[in-house]
């Protein structure tokens, strides 16, 4: 529709693509190659074919980490979605001090992971932590995340939700505030209940934003590492291990780069598997627009 310069759009996206290719794309190819070699510090790497993949696939801890990651990712992403949706709907009206409230709600996003772990560890200290004392006194729950792997995974999930909820909230809240009020009123006049208004009007309009939020959160959540490593180091007995920790151990504790790279590639496939559903929907959306 504008000037007929075919190279122009390509030129405009090229800085972004260049950044991605140089900083991520090319290293990724190296990673793929590394996954086929035996490689460590201070030694020549040798080609070993699919040995690294065989090694990680026959390691039961790898599979446990995969299952843990899969479970945590789904719990975290959907819990965030539900909480963020509730908050966004609750916020979707005018009231005094809304800006401040919204700021407080998204404040955890600004907290670095290192600080966040310190905060939560302190709050959930089994003997003196405020939350643990509350849980015990109010509900009689002995929340011992260092002993009980289920509690450990729960705490990792809670922490992860705490840090990342603002991301989902920002996107959903923005999306919900784009829903025109007159559309909703029109539906109400025609006798729709609030639930129907949400399902038929609001949700229809915010669906693409929900998709985007879900997809990016899936991709980010899949590489969950810091929270889990700093809290439990995968313990006790590596029962709370996630793929990020598994990769970290290989690469940065054992200096065994082959299996680390293979784990990375496996994680990419897992992400791809989950994201492909969303990508497909987005692709259809893009085609429909074009």
């Amino acid at each position: 529709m504008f000037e007929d310069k075919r190279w122009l759009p390509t030129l405009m996206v090229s800085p972004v693509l260049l950044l991605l290719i140089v900083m991520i794309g090319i290293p990724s190819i190296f990673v793929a190659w590394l996954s086929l070699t035996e490689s460590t510090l201070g030694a020549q790497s040798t080609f070993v074919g699919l040995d690294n993949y065989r090694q990680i696939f026959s390691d039961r801890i790898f599979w446990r980490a995969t299952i843990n990651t899969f479970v945590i990712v789904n719990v975290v992403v959907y819990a965030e979605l539900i909480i963020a949706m509730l908050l966004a709907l609750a916020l979707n009206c005018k009231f005094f001090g809304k800006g401040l409230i919204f700021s407080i709600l998204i404040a955890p996003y600004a907290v670095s992971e290192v600080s966040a772990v310190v905060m939560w560890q302190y709050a959930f200290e089994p003997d003196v932590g405020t939350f643990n004392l509350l849980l015990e006194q109010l509900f009689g729950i002995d929340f011992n995340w260092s002993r009980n792997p289920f509690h450990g995974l729960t705490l990792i999930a809670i922490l992860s939700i705490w840090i990342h909820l603002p991301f989902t909230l920002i996107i959903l809240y923005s999306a919900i505030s784009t829903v025109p009020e007159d559309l909703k009123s029109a539906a109400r006049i025609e006798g729709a209940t609030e639930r129907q208004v949400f399902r038929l009007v609001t949700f229809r309009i915010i669906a693409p934003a929900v998709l985007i939020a879900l997809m990016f959160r899936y991709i980010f959540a899949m590489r969950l590492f810091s929270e889990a490593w700093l809290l439990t180091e995968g313990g006790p007995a590596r029962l709370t291990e996630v793929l990020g920790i598994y990769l970290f151990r290989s690469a940065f504790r054992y200096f065994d780069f082959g299996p680390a790279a293979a784990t990375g590639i496996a994680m990419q496939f897992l992400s791809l598997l989950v994201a492909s559903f969303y990508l497909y929907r987005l692709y259809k959306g893009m085609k429909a627009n074009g």
Partner: protein
Amino acid sequence: MKHKSKIMLAGLSCLAGVAALNLSISQAGAETLTAVGHKVHQTTMTSDVGGNFAGEWAEKNGVEIEWLTFNTGAVHERLYREASLSSTSVDVGFAANRFFLPQFPAMFEPLDDYLASNPIEGFDELPKGMLDAMTIDGKLYGIPYRHATAALHINTALLEEKGLEVPTTFEEVLDVARALSFTRDDGTKVYGLMLDDRTPTSITDIARAQSNGEFLTQDFKLTASSPEMIAAVQTVQDLYNEGVLPETYLSFLTEDVITFMQQGRGAMAISPFGRNKNYNNPDESQFPGKIISIPLPASETLTGFKVAPVRTEFWAMFIPKNSDDKDRAWDFIRNASSPENTIKAALNGNGPVRPSAYDDPRMAERLSYAEAEQTVLSVARPPLPGWDNSARVQDIFVEELDLVLLGIKTPEEAMNSVQERVTPLLPE
């Protein structure tokens, strides 16, 4: 087009600004010696308490020392990566024995020639065991700087509160630990004994105190499934189940031991002598001056030992092969390991690797535990050798021990499994 160039110009000037900033920072010192280590190495070489001997050396030689400090795991990760590159700015690096690798000859400079042409004063005094651990194919790669040897720390205030005596045998240690595990009126729990971690390092201390047991010797004899190790794991399991070890032992970090001791939530701890300073730190501790550090007593059934042959670990200094100023790096190391500076470092809170340092009157005056530490050092041994699989072996050990503490495996099953899983990881 005018605007296009404006945008480009803006972008370029941003980058240029950043680049200029980088330059201005890196040009601050004309000649620098870069050292990679832990903050503790920097403090013990530069603190004013005993003397800032590294600073004096730098001034005399007209160099600036750039300290790159990281936490323990990251120090090694960084140093080894830098040393594997084709060139690096790192001249001196610190590494702890547990992290030693067989790839050292490819990463670090052999020091024998430097030692011959420009010797270290009183080199013969340095412990042979430490030097052996850094000798590969007859060549020496590191010079020891700091040792950390385990002690039994006791909160005497709690001891008095319960009317107990300082234990003299390991059996008594366990009895006292049990007696000191109780819940206060306000609900706070006191734990009788704290261990630094769940790695072979801490468990071997128990095995050695009980029966001079061993997990993995320096020459790679693996005895994980020996009756001594199984008994040690059994002891740890009992202590954990009885609530003598903290409930959080399964996610414990070394830092937590310090916090627990300072708050009186831990009554005794087996950890390095140097911690005495932290446990008694008047700014942080609720029991300053009340926590004593003594040699861990050996079991009454263990003949030939008055004190348990606990762990000693050490840090040493290395020169990366790709450093561009090796002579200066050697001079730095030489200076740091002279007898006088060893004492100064010790006064700054370092564990001195020279036995003679303990004879210096300044030591006994400043450090209440100097004599005790010297006694232990004469029998202490490294907990396990360092090689490329040692991190893996530690992870396996922790995993199996956790299964015991969770009640999933018996100590015997777990240690048999460790034996089986670790055997293929030993060097040939």
